[in-house]
């Protein structure tokens, strides 16, 4: 929201006077001003839940500390987000979370970075308060191919279940059971394939601790996400143009690199707002599939396709196409380009057709 449209008043945050627009929360104002307030259960795509209490701040005249994510800014509010009281609260809270969460990074962080451990480090929260026995149940029999739920590292922030409900709109997963046994589950603890789940993987994307993880890299025992190189690119499936991060293990394939998972950029600065679908997030195995073509092929006198060198294949192709022109004229050739390929490649195909082979018979499967 742009404060220039619908200016609703001013708050004072850490001594700075800041304008806000109607409907903005304390967290919205802080974000825009570059003031860092830690959050775990917050996601800009979701309705504020105020569940994790990591973002509590002090407001002058308020007896209790309100959550910045769920408290609307009001004119004249004086807010303190860094103080000994706030710091003490954060440390205690994080330490309490860690009595129900592994504190050993090796053990807890198998895939995505564990933001709870990061935060405990950042705020120097004690990690030695002991560990309660785990009472959350998982779904070990869930045979879906992509989404793994690790009950051990879940902190019940419910970002996953709220995303499933509010953004993807399928309500496949939900908070189940009560008290210390509360867990993330499905109707009758069914496997995700037997629910309304469409395998978009949004639950993995929003999870702050990696409790919702991607199965394929876990099963392959790929390197944790921290050690991978992220390459921002554009999805190659439909016409939405989602931005995604190809997570590459640069050492794999003898240094040629391997795409081991796909993650989505943070919400806000992309057309897809950080969302991906089942194809964009999970359908990347084709990149390194054994069926990929690896050598040029030329059909021999017996009618069989044989492996050839690039020089042979290029010469054969050029003379073959030229032969058609010689016998039937330039318009005896047709060029089929591809809407799956890049702008540059389409440009080159039409230039090849028009400049080199002198025909306008060039098109692609653009029927819309």
């Amino acid at each position: 929201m742009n404060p220039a449209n619908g200016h609703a008043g001013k708050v004072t945050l850490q001594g700075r006077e800041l304008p806000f627009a109607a409907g903005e929360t304390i967290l919205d104002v802080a974000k825009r001003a570059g003031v860092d307030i830690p959050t775990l259960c917050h996601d800009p795509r979701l309705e504020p839940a105020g569940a994790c209490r990591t973002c509590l701040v002090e407001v002058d005249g308020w007896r209790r500390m309100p959550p910045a994510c769920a408290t609307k800014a009001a004119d004249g509010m004086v807010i303190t987000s860094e103080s000994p009281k706030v710091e003490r609260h954060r440390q205690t809270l994080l330490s309490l979370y860690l009595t129900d969460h592994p504190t050993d990074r090796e053990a807890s962080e198998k895939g995505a970075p564990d933001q709870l451990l990061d935060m405990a480090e950042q705020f120097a929260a004690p990690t030695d308060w002991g560990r309660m026995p785990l009472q959350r149940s998982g779904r070990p029999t869930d045979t879906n191919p992509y989404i793994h739920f690790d009950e051990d590292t879940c902190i019940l922030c419910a970002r996953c279940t709220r995303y499933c409900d509010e953004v993807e709109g399928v309500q496949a997963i939900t908070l189940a059971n009560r008290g210390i046994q509360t867990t993330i589950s499905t109707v009758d603890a069914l496997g995700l394939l037997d629910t309304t789940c469409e395998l978009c993987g949004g639950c993995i994307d929003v999870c702050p601790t990696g409790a919702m993880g991607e199965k394929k890299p876990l099963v392959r025992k790929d390197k944790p996400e921290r050690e991978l190189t992220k390459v921002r690119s554009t999805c190659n499936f439909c016409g939405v143009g989602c931005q995604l991060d190809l997570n590459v293990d640069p050492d794999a394939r003898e240094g040629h690199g391997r795409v081991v998972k796909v993650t989505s950029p943070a919400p806000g600065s992309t057309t897809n707002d950080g969302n991906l679908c089942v194809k964009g997030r999970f359908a990347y195995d084709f990149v390194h599939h054994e069926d990929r073509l690896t050598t040029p092929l030329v059909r021999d006198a017996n009618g069989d396709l044989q492996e050839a060198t690039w020089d042979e294949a290029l010469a054969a192709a050029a003379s073959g196409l030229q032969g058609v022109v010689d016998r039937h004229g330039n318009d005896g050739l047709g060029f089929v380009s591809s809407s799956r390929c890049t702008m540059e490649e389409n440009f080159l195909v039409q230039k090849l057709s028009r400049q080199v082979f002198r025909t306008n018979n060039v098109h692609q499967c653009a029927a819309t």
Partner: protein
Amino acid sequence: MFGAGAMTNSIGEIRDADFLFVIGSNTSEAHPIIAMEMKRAVRDGATMVVADPRKIWMTSIANRHLQIAPGSDVWLLNAMAHVIIEEGLTDQAFIDAHTEDFDQVIEAVKAYTPEAAEEVTGVSAEDIRWTARKYATTEKAGIYYTLGITEHTHGTDNVYALANLVLMTGHLGKPSSGMNPLRGQNNVQGANDSGATPIFYPGYQRVDDPVAQAKFEEAWGCELSPDPGMNLNVMMKAVGKSIKGLFVMGEDIVLSEPNVSRLEEAMNDLEFVVLQDAFVNETFRYANVVFPASVFAEKEGVFTNSERRVQRVRKAVDPPGQAREDWQILIQLANAAGANWTYASSAEVYDELASLAPQYAGISHARLDREAATAAARGAKTGLQWPCRTDTDEGAVYLHQGGVMRGKGLFQPVAYRPPVEPTDEQYGLVLSTGRTLYHYNCATQTRRESGSHIKQPEAFVEIHPADARTRGISDQDQVRVFTRRGEIQVRAIVSRQVRRGSIWIPLHFGEARANLLTTDEGDPITQTASYKVCAADVAKLDSATADNVFPGCHYAVDGPGGHHG
């Protein structure tokens, strides 16, 4: 119509819309991320009407579902126009200022009363009236459509009929209010923009315009043909006749093109075929030379999405074996054929494109990279939307702001034309084809993916219980689906998802190619084939045949687990 073939709004505007008219778009399966934006709009109180012959997922959150008979779109849309005109809901100021020939539409839709439309479309007159009123009277009202509108013999008529609604209500040139074709492939928009079309050079400059021809002749230092070329559908029909040689990059024409059995025969009459692809496909058996190419993760370049947004594709890994990036192969092929192309990078190729297509001139790889790095901090979105003519041009979020791009929006009266292939005694059902969530097009990529395979391992036909009963078909039976052109064997899904009298088949499966069935009768203007309507029928297979139901499957499809580990 208005002057540009693209979404007039941006994807980010969908969430702010107050009325969404979704027609011929199975959005949650074909464009799941756009569907998320629509779901968000509906959650925030927007009204949504879905017009589709099937009970697609989006109908479960829509205020109304107009379960239209396949191919009767013109009736529905003209009847909506009829209501809007009859009830005086038009935006006369917009019509006067920005359009031409409204009178002709008034005349043309007179006979299209909602009551008469109900007879043909199966949609109640009340639903038509309600939708028309709601559309006309909501300020932020957007139309979203896909191939359910265009893949007909009257596809152009459908688009005109939609555009007439947009123009008469002035729903154009404003945020969240416009006409939005959702593009099927990642770079459909970009492929057209960059000139891979028979009538346009890059940037929609006509090949038969002497000024454009002179411009490109000078740029490329050669004479160019002033004769418009063949579009894909015409080209495929000319294969083996006037077309004797083909170069095909990244498309499996034998799987994708309609009425393929005729095409396959004609392919044998070709003298030379060059393929450039990353995988073996069905067209391979006709190839003389095959170049091993790259997938998107292995190359540099840009894609242009449905909302005209140009975004970077970046090389993350090397291609396997001797495979090369496609743009490099094309340069090498051109040079082997006597050209002297010297591009050292994909960025240099882009620069030439931008120098020739003014709407792209303000965009470069360097600018995209530079601005992407700061997008989050600036609160901006990654990528730039054309038209973007200079280095400082921020690009156009929505088109036709302050008036229609071509000067005046042209009303195009359209009349209903019945399907070219009506049902009859032998072929009693209307066949439509389409996409599913879990696969993509020819599925060369998704059928190599364990999850897609588990969710949807094989081809199927959806058939209404009443139609199944009269044919003695039960759910999960193996059946054959046949048309005048061919037949395939698939599993029957007996479901009220489809209308009575209609069947539906996904297009993704090589062993049960939907395009053995489809007709290649095209739209008279675009030649886009009628993938959505042809006459067909279904019969149960006897069990002996059914055991070997997929004899043609030669994809290495892994079961659950497989070597994906």
